[in-house]
């Protein structure tokens, strides 16, 4: 088996050596959903061109919401890019499974196996165990807070859930909205759960879910949801939160109208861009009682993949090799403020360093990592479930039962 694999890899490498020289017209089409990073990417391409001066790369960006559709459509129509950003987990599998992506291994991307396992997992096809993309950043679910507003209300970042409630109370008394979070944008109902409740759920809960020992009617999950629900009921989220959408949430926090934002580490850079004077810091989800392990929610954002049908695979592989280099990782982390999983990356930004530190104790961003492979995805169920619960239309127990029921339609361990 192993010999076969090596042979196949060697063959693949050999064909690549022979074939693409002719096809290597030196042009690469690069696709991403990060329109806002265009300038930085053009700079990366310049770096890449230092060693590969003949390769001309064109940058094209698409709306994040439509990106998966756009990409899979284009790939199916043989109109895809040569190199592209792909999402991780289920959305990645939708591309890798039909064979649209080129397999990456030690022979074409040396060092890829040295990436952290948690990040490689997101770009590995579960059915064949092969890697199809170079991971580019992990994202962390945590709480971002405004240090000036905290100082104004005389509060410190909380450690336990009770302290968090106390902090909210004091902020509210000082006339400050505690959380910028609203529920109008569906996916923000998933991020808030991971950002605020990970420590209460715990690694053991994740293990039990994956092994099938527990489902989402589990007391740990239902109780955690209940505490989140209490926060909303006590009016600690944004005013009229059910109508507050994602852009408004961002605006409330970055303009200093709310003290905390429970969400992803990917918010840090936009917040600073919107308001360069903003003083912020981060903390991991509070624990139930002192001494419990403090966790953040972690997932791989995506990776860089090569189109298996690209006419210019050789240059495509060169480009993903650059994306796997420390040179890229350092720059990627420190100019875009992303947590690059490239081994050995140094974070010059103290905030990033801090998030990287928090990342050492993590559990998965649960639904994305484990339940976004089939319909109805755990994410969709959790999002609408929490949205409904926070609107006061369902109890935490009902929410847990509804999620379990949805996943049970395809996940054997939940079937009773």
């Amino acid at each position, binding site marked *: 088996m192993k010999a076969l694999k090596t042979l196949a890899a060697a063959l693949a490498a050999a064909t690549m050596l022979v074939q693409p020289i002719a096809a290597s017209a030196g042009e690469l089409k690069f696709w991403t959903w990060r329109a806002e990073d265009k300038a930085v990417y053009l700079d990366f391409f310049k770096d890449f061109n230092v060693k590969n001066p003949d390769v001309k790369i064109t940058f094209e960006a698409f709306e994040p919401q439509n990106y998966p559709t756009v990409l*899979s459509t284009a790939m199916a129509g043989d109109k895809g890019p040569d190199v592209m950003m792909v999402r991780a987990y289920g*959305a990645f599998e*939708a591309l890798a499974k039909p064979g649209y992506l080129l397999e990456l291994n030690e022979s074409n991307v040396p060092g890829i196996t040295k990436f952290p396992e948690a990040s490689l997992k997101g770009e590995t096809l579960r059915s064949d165990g092969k890697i199809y993309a170079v991971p580019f950043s992990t994202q962390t679910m945590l709480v971002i807070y405004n240090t000036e507003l905290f100082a104004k209300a005389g509060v410190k970042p909380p450690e336990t859930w009770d302290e968090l409630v106390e902090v909210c109370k004091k902020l509210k008394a000082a006339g400050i909205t505690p959380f910028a979070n609203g529920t109008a944008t*569906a996916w923000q109902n998933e991020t808030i759960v991971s950002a605020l409740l990970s420590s209460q759920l715990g690694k053991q809960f994740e293990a039990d879910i994956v092994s099938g020992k527990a489902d989402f009617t589990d007391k740990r999950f239902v109780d955690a949801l209940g505490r989140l629900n209490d926060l909303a009921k006590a009016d600690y989220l944004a005013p009229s939160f059910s*109508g507050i959408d994602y852009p408004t949430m961002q605006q409330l926090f970055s303009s200093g109208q709310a003290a905390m934002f429970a969400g992803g580490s990917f918010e840090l850079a936009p917040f600073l861009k919107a308001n360069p004077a903003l003083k912020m810091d981060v903390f991991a989800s509070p624990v139930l009682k002192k001494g419990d392990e403090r966790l953040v929610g972690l997932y791989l954002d995506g990776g860089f993949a090569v189109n298996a049908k690209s006419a210019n695979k050789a240059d495509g592989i060169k480009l993903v090799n650059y994306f796997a280099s420390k040179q890229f990782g350092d720059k990627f982390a420190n100019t875009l403020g992303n947590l690059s999983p490239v081994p050995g990356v140094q974070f010059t930004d103290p905030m990033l360093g801090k998030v990287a530190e928090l990342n050492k104790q993590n559990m998965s961003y649960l639904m994305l990592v484990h339940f976004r492979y089939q319909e109805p995805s755990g994410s969709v169920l959790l*999002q609408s479930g929490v949205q*409904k619960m926070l609107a006061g239309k369902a109890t935490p127990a009902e929410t847990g039962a509804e999620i379990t029921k949805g996943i049970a339609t395809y996940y054997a361990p939940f079937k009773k």
Partner: protein
Amino acid sequence: MADLEWPVGRRIWVATLIVPPLAFMTAFVVMPILSAFVYAFYHWEGLKRVDFVGLKNFTDVLLHEPWAPVTWRAFSHNVMVFVVLMLIQNGVGFLLAYALSRQLPGHRFHRVAVFLPVILSSVIVALVWKQFLHPVFGLFNKVLSLAGFGTFTTPWLGLSETALWALTLVNAWHWVGFPTLVFLAGIQRIPPDIIEAGRIDGVNEWQLVSKIIWPLVAPSATVTFILLFIGAFNWFELPYLMAGVEGSPYGSTDVLGLYFYRTAFGNQSSGAQDFGHGSALAVMMFLFVAVISAIWTVRLRRREIEIA
């Protein structure tokens, strides 16, 4: 009927006129629709057709978890939207048409005004109203507060009780000009002597409208009703742009169009594309709309003939 004496030249000429458009329709309307029927009987992996599964996709979507509850919830929303639009969009439309038919001062201006939103793209309408309905900064709540109804301000698009109705009203705002002007044309086609006769007989204005004008206009409104019916059951743009592809909040604005779209093309929170179940949904929506509008057309046309 057919002219058997046509010279060959004319036969070729008529064929030249008819065949290209016919071929075009066949290739890009008939074929895709027939294909949709075929696709619905297969299991799909992404964009690849895999196994023939018979009626499974249909029974899944109509009867089985997790599809069926979503299908029926979406369907019930379509029904509600249709009924409400029938009442307000067409009802207000009729009222406005009657008012316009009176040719009061400024009626030309009002006629242009009521039709203005109709020519705007749903994208513009949806995005403008989405901002206007914003709970904090939106125009709507600000106007309410200004008018002294501050206690009624609410996150219209965020509450499950109001979101669907907010969307429905925006739709009515967008389209009310259409039935208005169709009805107006209908009223204007009524021979004036019929109305005169009514007035001479001393019927009051209400009776005139309900007993004479409405029955005479109703048949000519056939197409308006059917277009509204088709529109209501294919509703997509407005909910997609204002409530998102999941029909936020928690599915309270979910309609068949959205469900079809996310089943077939996936969304951000689940990358899966499922053309099999998607096609089954499309085929059933298609049959539902086609059968009902065909029956309706035939029945109303018949009534029309009886009245005429």
